[in-house]
């Protein structure tokens, strides 16, 4: 309670005084047998113990599965087992609650481990493939329950997949269910066993089950609850409109959850969301005590970045992972003492902030031909002053490098991989205008026009349009675009920086109607998100070839040459049983990038991201990788084991 406002108003102070007195006396009354013990000997939160004593909640042993998942903490920053209680104040920036789901929305069947080097059990205790990889058997933990006490069984998964095969609504089988275009079949011999059968080997499925919060959110459907909105089970409904609405976890506080904290109240039209502990949560700490430690979470929608900064400085936030900018770091550092927080610097693990993507299939046939010439791309890469990008856009806090995925990705952990990655990072990443100009001259682009720009083979001025986003979410990219343009102008190339309003940027990118566009790059797992290195989707530097691959050869442009090599390697990866061999195949593709690239040009990478942690907030990893979404950080650190000092 703050007094400071009302110093000059005796009446208000008096009211406050009364209020404080009354709230104190209430607190004293509330301190009954359950909260009086301060130690770590309770197996469940006092809040829940009270409900059990009142008979409104079954005892702990009936709420936990037979073998609960034990939270791991293989990181610096973990202190000890926590104390129950507290309210975690948090901010989200988007109505889809994405930044919170990255923390408390990770409840997959199989999990990524903390280092992102292996998979570990989640809702499932174990999983196994048959000999040829066409059948995956998952063994769920017995006695798992939704937050309303209903059992979570294989029927949930089967219900979801049945939904996918139905085409009356927006749910459809995800890409990883398909092998050669044929969807899998799902069998559930008993409540705890899920058998997924594919048309052929599908060794990457466990990775997909573990990746992102969005897949587990999709396949974890509380079927008992959702059936009441399903037209086949409730004749009140004739379509799936209501079903789809009620199935949105962040919009429906009644939808049962598997999260550590379930949504209890959606306030002020979704501008403030309250979450409270899930009494049936299946994860325990080393001492076998049920998690989470923290009782409640209040997360507020704060779309304005400067208001977020002020809220942090004012100490209104207990722990915040995303949506804070590196450029405000000095402010955060200054406010540490007054705001009673500390700053932990996590890694974005990005390989390019941003990457300069050159459209392999430019609509202009002359530019297309030029971009497909390796020396032309090399010259463009040599024309980027990366030190300057770093100094101006990031105050020298990042590292100049070629465009890569994450250095920490598990494909490059062995010695060979690390050496290869190092080579990739340095390839064509110098700033050398002289060499760049010489490469362009050697290509025959020697003729200059009256403004001293090079002339293309068809007699027109060599001019490149650089698409940059107009969004205020990305301030660095506009700085970078200017520096890139400056370098390319010195190569005799005219650069037009184009900042289209609204969604035009995306439309241009989707249709492949761009020459150069910027996009940040970073990925920990190329098996599930290969499109940074392999042209598998209609994005980045390969919109048309990616479209061809995505559409099964019906749209876009058929791959030739090195593009075909990339896609062949990725198809091999999908069929390869041996993990080490799969890593080797990724490394082979990277070698292609080094030898025949660059296909997308690097600027700077390895951004650090400030994490705000109150001094009263504990067990947060000192360092982690926050960048790529697919690994769901900090969800993989078991945020349910964070705890707060008692008030």
């Amino acid at each position, binding site marked *: *309670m*703050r007094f*400071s*406002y*009302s110093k000059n108003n005796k009446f*208000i102070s008096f*009211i*406050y005084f009364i*209020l404080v007195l009354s709230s104190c006396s209430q607190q004293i009354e509330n301190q009954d047998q359950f909260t009086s013990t301060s130690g770590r000997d309770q197996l469940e939160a006092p809040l829940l113990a009270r409900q059990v004593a009142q008979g409104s909640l079954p005892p702990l042993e009936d709420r936990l599965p037979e073998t609960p998942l034990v939270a791991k903490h293989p990181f610096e920053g973990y202190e000890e087992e926590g104390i129950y209680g507290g309210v975690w*104040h948090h901010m989200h*920036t988007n*109505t*889809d609650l*994405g930044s919170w789901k990255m923390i408390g929305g990770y409840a997959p069947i199989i999990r990524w481990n903390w280092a992102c080097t292996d998979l570990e059990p989640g809702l499932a205790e174990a999983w196994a493939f048959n000999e040829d990889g066409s059948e995956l058997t998952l063994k769920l933990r017995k006695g798992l329950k939704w937050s309303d006490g209903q059992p979570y069984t294989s029927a949930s998964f089967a219900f979801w997949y049945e939904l996918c095969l139905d085409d009356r609504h*927006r*749910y459809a089988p*995800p890409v990883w269910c398909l092998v050669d275009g044929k969807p899998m079949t799902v069998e559930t011999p008993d409540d705890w066993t899920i058998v997924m059968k594919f048309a052929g080997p599908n060794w990457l499925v466990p990775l997909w089950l573990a990746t*992102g919060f*969005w*897949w587990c*959110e999709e396949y974890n459907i509380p079927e008992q609850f959702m059936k009441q909105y399903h037209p086949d089970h409730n004749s009140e409904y004739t379509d799936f409109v209501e079903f789809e609405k009620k199935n949105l976890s962040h*919009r429906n506080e009644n939808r049962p959850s598997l999260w550590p904290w379930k949504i209890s*109240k959606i*306030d*002020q*039209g*979704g*501008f*403030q969301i*309250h979450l409270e502990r899930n009494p049936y949560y299946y994860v325990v700490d080393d001492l076998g005590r049920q998690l989470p430690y923290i009782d409640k979470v*209040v997360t*507020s929608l*704060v*779309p*304005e970045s400067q*208001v977020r900064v*002020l*809220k942090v*400085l*004012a100490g*209104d936030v207990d722990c915040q992972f995303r949506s804070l900018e590196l450029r405000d770091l000095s402010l955060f550092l200054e406010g540490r003492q*007054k705001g009673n927080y500390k700053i932990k610097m996590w890694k974005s693990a990005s390989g390019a902030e941003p990457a300069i993507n050159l459209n392999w299939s430019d609509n202009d046939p002359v530019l297309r031909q030029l971009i497909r010439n390796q020396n032309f791309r090399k010259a463009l890469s040599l024309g980027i002053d990366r030190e300057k990008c770093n100094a101006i856009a990031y105050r020298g806090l990042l590292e100049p490098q070629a465009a890569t995925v994450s250095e920490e990705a598990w494909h490059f952990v062995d010695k060979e991989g690390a050496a290869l990655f190092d080579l990739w990072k340095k390839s064509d990443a110098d700033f050398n205008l002289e060499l760049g100009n010489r490469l362009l001259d050697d290509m025959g682009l020697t003729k200059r026009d009256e403004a001293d720009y090079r002339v293309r083979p068809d007699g027109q001025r060599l001019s490149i349009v650089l698409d940059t*986003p107009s*969004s205020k*979410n*990305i301030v660095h990219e506009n700085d970078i675009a200017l520096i890139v343009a400056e370098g390319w102008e010195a190569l005799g190339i005219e650069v037009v920086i184009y900042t289209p*309003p*609204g*969604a*035009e*940027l*995306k*439309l241009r990118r989707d249709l492949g109607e761009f020459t150069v566009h910027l*996009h*940040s*790059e970073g990925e920990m797992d190329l098996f599930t*998100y290969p499109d940074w290195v392999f042209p598998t989707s209609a994005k980045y530097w390969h919109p048309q070839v990616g479209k061809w691959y995505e559409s099964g050869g019906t749209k876009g442009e058929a791959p030739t040459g090195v593009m075909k090599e990339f896609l062949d390697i990725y198809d091999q990866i999908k069929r390869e049983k041996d993990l080490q061999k799969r890593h080797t195949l990724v490394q082979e593709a990277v070698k292609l990038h080094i030898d025949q690239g660059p296909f997308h040009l690097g600027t700077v990478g390895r951004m650090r991201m400030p994490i705000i942690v109150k001094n009263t907030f504990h067990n947060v990893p000192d360092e982690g990788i926050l960048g*790529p*979404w*697919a690994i769901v950080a900090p969800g993989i650190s078991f945020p349910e084991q964070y705890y707060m000092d008692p008030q």
Partner: protein
Amino acid sequence: MISFIFRRCLLAIPTLLIISILGFVIIQLPEGDFLDRKIQELEEMYGDSSSLARIDELRARYGLDRPMWQQYISWISGFVVGDFGESFEYEREVNDLIWGRLGFTLLISVGSLIFTYSVAIPLGIYSASHQYQWSDHVLTFISFIGMSIPGFLLALALMVFFFEVFRIPLFGLFSAEFEGMPWSWNKGIDLIKHLWIPVIVVGLNGTAGLMRIMRGNLLDVLGQPFVQTARAKGLKESVVVVKHAVRIAINPLITIFGMSLPNILSGSTIVSIVLGLPTVGPLLLRSLLTEDIFLAGTLLMMFSLLLIIGNILADIALAWADPRIRL
């Protein structure tokens, strides 16, 4: 008088209709639609938009695949009966989103208006009746400063000042402990403690201008023969000024009342964005940026409605104060 009011109200209907069509078209002028924007934003922020797969089904559900005139007809026909459609961004009824926020917007706007008039008129009168004395110079100086500082800058400066000096975070309309709580006496007091900043910031620009206008008008009137007559009758100076001169000099201010509403509303929008207030301002900005058409359209209509009502009220007040208008 009755037919005058009736005529004004009737005229409002076609005006609103035209505004709704213009607004709806302009909102959708940028290329792409809400979903394109959303995906672009997700990819810019996070590098991935997998959570928005199967965009065509969503587009059909939102009705974004239909031609614009069909979208307009279905929206405006619902509007008449109070169904404003669904906000794409917030995935809930526009109705759920706007009323509370409109209330706070109105509260701040009306508060600013009251502040503006109750400060500007007395100061203007004082300034005019003490023309070219040092107190007039001081007030003139202050009012020029007030007119030249933009509201958002003042809001930012105040926010930084209060935070650095008193450690009071000024954003929002409630302290953290009251946010999301049901209404209570304490919450009301908390609201009032937060409310004065935006009210003053929004009102200040108008106050300064209005004060100058009041001063100028009154000076004009004070030079007229009937004021001389009043003085010659031996009336006290205060009666001459307040009862005879101000009565005439205040008429233009009533007209300005109608005109100052747009300034107050847009001023409150910008200040709300800076101060993080739960008014419709930030909601409107965001909905325009994301092409959340039904929310943006409804908010624009609400703003227009407020303006039209304000103007009608100003007209009525003027007609009441000055019989010549009624004819």
